[in-house]
Each structure stands twice: as C-alpha cells, then as structure tokens.
C-alpha cells in the first residue's frame, strides 16, 4: 500500500508549454483553483524551441491579409481534412491572442511604423508570422510564464502523470510522481486539460526533446477518448544532418522565409521542378520572382522553397534517393547567397537568424553567412491527437480537455509553420475557459482507491526486475523501427511488420528493469515512458495502414496519389473494451457554406 500526497484543484493542466500555460492562466482568470503539472522545470517545455514565428492575420505588413485568407491557407495546407470549425476559430482569434502577448510583455520585432513585424512562411499567402528573430517560442513561453506566476496558479514542476481516473462517466483525478524524489501525488480535479505536446520521441531523427513521448495521447486513449488523424506526422524538411550527434535539430523555416534556397549537389534549385497543382497559382514561376517576393514585392508570388513542409520534405528525400544529395545525406540550404543581392548580408542574417547562426557555428563549425547548411527531414510534429470539440476543446470523455499539439483537428493532414504557436494560445485559452466552466458545474469525485493503487504498483514494478531489459535499449529499438517502417515514405507490408514489432517491443517493455532508487532516476522514467510511446506508435501505424492514399504528412509508396474519396474522412482510433485498438472513419467536421465559398474565392 502506497502513501500518496493528495492535492485538490478544480482544474489541473498537464503540460506547461504554450498551451498549458495559456490554459492555466485562463482557468485561473475564471476564478477556479488551478494546478499546473509539468515534466520539466517551468519555462523549459518544447515551445521554447519554436523559432520562426506565430501566425496571425494582423495585416501589419500586407493589408490584404485577414482571417478569411488565413483560414483558407490553413485548410489548403491541411488538405481539407482539418476540423474546419477549429481552422475558422484559429484564424479569427489568433490576432487577439498575439496582441495579448504584447500586452503581457512580449517584445516582437517591429515594422518601420512601430507595429508588430510579420515574416513570410511556407503556405501562408501573405507575410503573417509575428516573430522575434528566430527565437519566437522562447519569447512566447517566457511571456506566459512571467505573466502566469502572478495568477495564483499552483505549479508542480518535474512531475509526471501516470494515469487518469473517472467516476460517473467523467474524469476526477490523476496519479503522478515527482521526478526528483519519486513520490506519488494524487491530484483530485473536476476537469483536466491535456497540453502535453507530441510524440516525436517515437522516431530516431527528431527535433523533439525527451519529453515528447505521447503522454497526453496515451492518457486520453486509456481513458477511452478517441484519437484522430494519427497517421499525419510532420517531418520538417530542414533538420541538421551533420555531425551525427546533432542530427535532427531543427533549422527554422525562417531561413527560407528570409530568402534561403534549397539546392542539390548539382547546384540546382530543385524545388522549382515539382510544384503541386493546388499551389501552382500561388508559386513563383522563376527564382527571380521568388526573390522579389522575399523583398516584399506584392505583385510577386512565393518562391518554391516556401511550399508546404510535407511536399518540401518529400522533394528532399527524392533528391537524396536519386543521388543528388549532399555529402552527409541531405541537401544544401543556402542563405549566404543573398549577399549577391543585398548589402551587409552577413549582419542581416545574424540579426534575423541569430540562433541559427549560433547553432551552426557552435555545433557544426559552419558560418551560415558564408557557407550553405546541410539539411534533411526530421520528425517534428504530430497533426493527430485527441479528438476534441472545436469550440470547447473537450475530448470525447467528459471533463477531459486537450489543447495544442496533443489535440487534433486544426492542422488536418499537414500543419503550416507558425500555426502551431497560434494554436497553443487560441485553443489553450479556450480549453482553460471551458475546463473552468465544467469544473464550476460539477462536484469533486473521489478516484477509486483500488485503481490508484494498481497504477502505483505497476509504476514500481521495474524496480522488482533489476536484471530486466534496459529501458533505453527498448526505446531505441522502437525509434529505429518507427523511423524505418512508419517514416516519411510508407508501404503496407512494412507498416504491418511494425505493428508486429510493436507487440514484441511491448513484451520487452513489460520486462524492463531498473537499478538504483526512486530519486531522480532517468532509467525508471524512461521505463515509464515506454508504454506511452508504444501506444502512440501503434496508433500511428494502424491509422497509416488504414489510409490507403497519400495526403499531407502521410505518404504511401503503394498509394502515391491523393484519393478524393478519402478527403472527406478522418480516421479515429479508440480503445476497444477488450483492450485492442480499433480504427474507424468519421466524416470531416465543421464544413460550412461560408467556408466553402472562401476556399473557392482564395483558390
């Protein structure tokens, strides 16, 4: 029998990145008691790594922009399987959320007339990304953190949630452990917001930190909630490829937004060779026109490097496969070339892309103001996640909400750069508000002691197997398998092998053992992350097998074309009563006549 510290809050928010912080702030503003639970120290969550900017149709740089254009860009980028209601709310509310960040102290780069500056990004028709050099995520998380610590929120740092509990058909609590001492904490709450981010640690090459083990996805799934769109994983086209130890670290799309070009080993700007039909009208015919766009010529169209991430990533894979790659298996991303076109290019690059300059100089001995970078795709984001109501962000389980990367819907089959940071604050706010309302309308319920004890027993089991499987090795095997078999280019038989392989890995994970004690024991923490990684990996693989077409982040070698019939369905994953994973189709949500007209208008 375990001793638990028991804590009562009206609302607990799990995860303290942009979405979790914004949700906690909003819930607190509605007068309920809020607990914010996060795996890391406050302010270290993955939001901190976001670089390029936050998308909002402020129309500060191009007055033609507006929510109507933003929503259609988002839907086009997502290949129309988005939750259209979420895309609409996001486009309408993002400007207010950005201005709110400024009111809370964020210091964005400025236009010449003193307003918030916006930059170009892939798939956005107009310059739309409010930014701070290439460290926008840091600015955002710090702003929310510094504002949040004055809102009466109880922050539980370095605490990991193990399971959620329900009574009377709604959530009522969660069991967690603190990483430093390894002690259990039982949180009782009337509503719970998941804001746990993504699943990138299921892959070897990833831009994601250790935290991204799909915890929220798995917690929701085991609570009976539906997941959606899990086949749509975003491989960002530009991660570092060399040296090996930095493989996967993100190179911001902002490099291309500032005029960076992609070239193969033959020196060819290969992105101009393959422009998808649905973007042809918006894309420059020549590199010259693309450069004029970068300079702000409103008559010019975007350079081909600013096509959507799914497409750019596939083009890079093609160049490498066909033998036109860079020495270390990527392609070249060149920003230094702009010195041919503008004076003081080196200073300009350092001012607009300071972290990139720093990162390459320090980690790869490359001066990006002088030489090209080598880049290749890296696992970056999961469009799929917890299925939520577009307005309230409540999952299919009453009282359980989700916001940010862990939620599905906004991005459809492919997310546009910059739409993630705006997603966090738009839907973080909504989740916080509706979770607070839910909490006010419901009473507290006591989690079942037997279930709680069961969770605790299972969590401690790895200590009974000191000679068991090394959890790091199981995790590594999982990452290698997912990278190989359910990566950027997918085939039915490979994914079927992955599903079988996951079963074998599950058995190994069940035998995982750890040495040492419960205090700050990363081996134990890794062992406890494994079941979550296995759950989300299975959801990705099963959904990817089911979707027999290619769309957005999901590319099937055996079904390389987009199939219009699939364009009206999302795939849902849910736990069957017998514990197995069921995959089913549901029609796309939120399509209205008004939005359909807008899509047509801004084709």
């Amino acid at each position, binding site marked *: 029998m375990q001793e638990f510290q028991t804590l009562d809050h009206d609302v607990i928010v799990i995860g303290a990145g942009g979405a979790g912080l914004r949700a906690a702030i909003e819930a607190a503003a509605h007068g309920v008691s809020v607990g914010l639970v996060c795996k890391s*120290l406050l302010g270290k969550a993955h939001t901190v790594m976001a670089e390029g900017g936050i998308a909002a149709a402020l129309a500060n740089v191009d007055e033609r922009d507006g929510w109507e254009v933003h929503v259609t860009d988002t839907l086009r980028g997502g290949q129309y399987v988005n939750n259209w209601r979420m895309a609409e709310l996001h486009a309408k509310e993002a400007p207010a959320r950005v201005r709110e960040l400024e009111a809370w102290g964020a210091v964005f780069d*400025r236009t010449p007339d003193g307003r918030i500056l916006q930059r170009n990004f892939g798939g956005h028709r107009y310059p739309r990304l409010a930014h701070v050099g290439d460290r926008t995520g840091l600015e955002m998380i710090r702003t929310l953190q510094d504002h949040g610590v004055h809102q009466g929120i109880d922050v539980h740092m370095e605490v990991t949630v193990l399971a959620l509990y329900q009574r009377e058909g709604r959530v009522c609590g969660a069991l967690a452990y603190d990483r430093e001492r390894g002690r259990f904490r039982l949180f009782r709450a009337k509503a719970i917001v998941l804001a746990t981010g993504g699943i990138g640690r299921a892959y070897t090459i990833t831009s994601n930190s250790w935290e991204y083990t799909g915890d929220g996805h798995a917690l929701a799934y085991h609570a009976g909630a539906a997941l959606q769109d899990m086949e749509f994983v975003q491989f960002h086209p530009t991660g570092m490829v060399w040296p*090996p*130890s*930095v493989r996967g670290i993100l190179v911001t799309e902002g490099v291309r937004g500032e005029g960076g070009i992609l070239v193969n080993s033959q020196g060819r700007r290969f992105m101009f060779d393959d422009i998808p039909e649905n973007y042809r009208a918006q894309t420059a015919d020549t590199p010259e026109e693309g450069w004029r766009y970068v300079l702000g010529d409103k008559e010019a169209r975007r350079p081909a490097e600013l096509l959507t991430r799914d497409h750019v990533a596939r083009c890079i894979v093609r160049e490498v496969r066909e033998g036109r790659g860079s020495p270390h298996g990527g392609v070249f991303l060149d920003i230094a070339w702009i010195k041919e076109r503008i004076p003081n290019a080196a200073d300009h690059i350092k001012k607009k892309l300071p972290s990139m300059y720093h*990162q390459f100089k320090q980690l790869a001995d490359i001066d990006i103001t002088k030489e090209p970078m080598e880049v290749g795709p890296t696992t970056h984001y999961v469009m799929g996640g917890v299925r939520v109501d577009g307005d309230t962000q409540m999952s299919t389980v009453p009282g359980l909400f989700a916001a940010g990367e862990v939620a599905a819907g906004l991005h459809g089959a492919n997310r546009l750069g910059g739409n993630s940071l705006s997603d966090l604050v738009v839907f973080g706010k909504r989740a916080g508000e509706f979770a607070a309302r839910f909490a006010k309308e419901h009473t507290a319920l006591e989690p079942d002691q037997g279930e709680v004890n069961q969770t605790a027993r299972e969590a401690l089991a790895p200590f009974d197997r000191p000679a068991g499987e090394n959890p790091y090795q199981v995790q590594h095997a999982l990452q290698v398998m997912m990278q190989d078999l359910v990566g950027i280019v997918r085939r039915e038989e490979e994914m079927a092998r992955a599903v079988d392989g996951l079963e074998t890995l599950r058995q190994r994970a069940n035998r995982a053992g750890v040495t040492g004690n419960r*205090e700050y024991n990363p081996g134990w923490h890794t062992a406890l992350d494994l079941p979550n990684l296995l759950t989300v990996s299975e959801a990705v693989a099963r959904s990817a097998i089911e979707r027999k077409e290619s769309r957005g982040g999901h590319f099937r070698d055996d079904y390389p074309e987009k199939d219009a019939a699939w364009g009206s369905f999302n795939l849902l994953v849910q736990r069957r009563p017998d514990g197995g994973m069921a995959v089913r189709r549901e029609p796309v949500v939120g399509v209205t006549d008004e939005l359909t007209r807008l899509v047509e208008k801004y084709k």
Partner: protein
Amino acid sequence: MAQATFQIWRGEHGDGQFVDFRTEVSEGMVVLDAVHQIQATQATDLAVRWNCKAGKCGSCSAEINGTPKLMCMTRLDQLDLTEPVTIEPMRSFPHARDLVTDVSWNFRVKPQIRPFTPRAPDAADGTWRMEQEDVNRVQEFRKCIECFLCQDVCHVLRDHHLHDEFVGPRYLVYAAALEMHPLDVLDRRGELRLAHGIGYCNITKCCTTVCPEGIQITDNAIIPLKERVMDHAFDPVVKLYGLITGKIAGP
C-alpha cells in the same frame, strides 16, 4: 573509435564523489552526448537534467572541467581528451542527485519582482507602437534561457550565500528588461536597492563570461540599473521633496 574518460559526480544531497566512465567519442559529440551514452549503457540511473539539446531551453547546466557551461553546447573536440573530463553539478544550488541540483530558489525569486505593467495602448485598436531601435536593448535581455549559470558563478551567491538578500544576475537582467521596456510604467528602483540587493554586485563580470547567450549582463543590464538606482536614491530633488512632504526620500 577513440575513447575518453569522464569523471562524473555521483551521489545524493551533497554526499558524493567522482566516478570514472570511459566511452566512445565520435565526430561532433557534445558533453551531453557522452553523458547520455554512459547513461544508456553503463549507469541507467545517472541523473541529468536536459531538454532540447540545442542550447535553447537552458536545462543542462553543469560545471565541466570546473567551468559552468551547457552540456549540450560544449563540444568534446574543444576539450583536452587526453585528460579525464570532469562533469559536476552546479555548486551554488542545493544538490539533489548526480548532476541535478535543486534550482527552485530561482523560481521563488522571480515573482518577488513586480510584473510587467504597460501604459495605456497607443492606438484605438488597443495596440502599441514601439520603434525597433527602442526594443533592441530589451530584446537582448529577453534572449535569456534561464540556465542559471550566471547565478551559479556569482560570488555573492556562490561564496557568500546571500540568497535572501540578493536576487542574482539572472533577476537583475529580468528587472532590467522590465525597467527598460518601452511600455512598462512601474518604477522598481526602490526595491532593486533595498529588497533585491543590487548593491551587492561589484561588477566582476563572471556572470557575463559564462552566459551562453552572450548577453552583456554586467555592462548592458546591471551597470545601467545601478546608475538608475543611485540617481533615484541620491537625487537631491527627491530628498528635498521628502523632507518637505515628510515622505521618506528615495527608496
């Protein structure tokens, strides 16, 4: 493949010793890679705090060969690998386990500094106007990743343990970012002198030396703040006003 020896501090709550580990070294590796390799193969319970591994989150601060650094940004080819590389936790904070320290004090200090408070919006739509050149200075301070290396190396904290009287360089930079924010209307000079102990800093610039973000902590943040605080505290007009009105002059 080449190998190197790492002497890693192991133990709990202050009790501990260096333990030697040998591991393979490959091109481009950073110290954090070596620690992860050792963790995965030789010491699964080796405690280390880290997140982004890209120099952006400021979690993996440690003392490498005695110098406070981020483990993720310290390349092995910049160290002398013919000698063992020592890796130990930040020494200015209470030790938790192995390379992990209890940095919670920092999180308690921040809320003591009064938060950002903007003037009324400049435009009817609720927005403000700021020139880029007016925000450059603040943007430098806002690059801070809160790695606390500056706190670790500051002798006021490290040697004199004046945690109750001095907020440390990180929070002087934080205060400077607020005081020099074009929109902020609060005046924090009084509490900077009395509650936050800015006078303890005798500008040895150790903090600036270790800052992984290259923030000119001493020259651009602390010295200008000190000047503002002194101007305020010893302004004869303020003193006279205090004498006449009976309110305490200065902070």
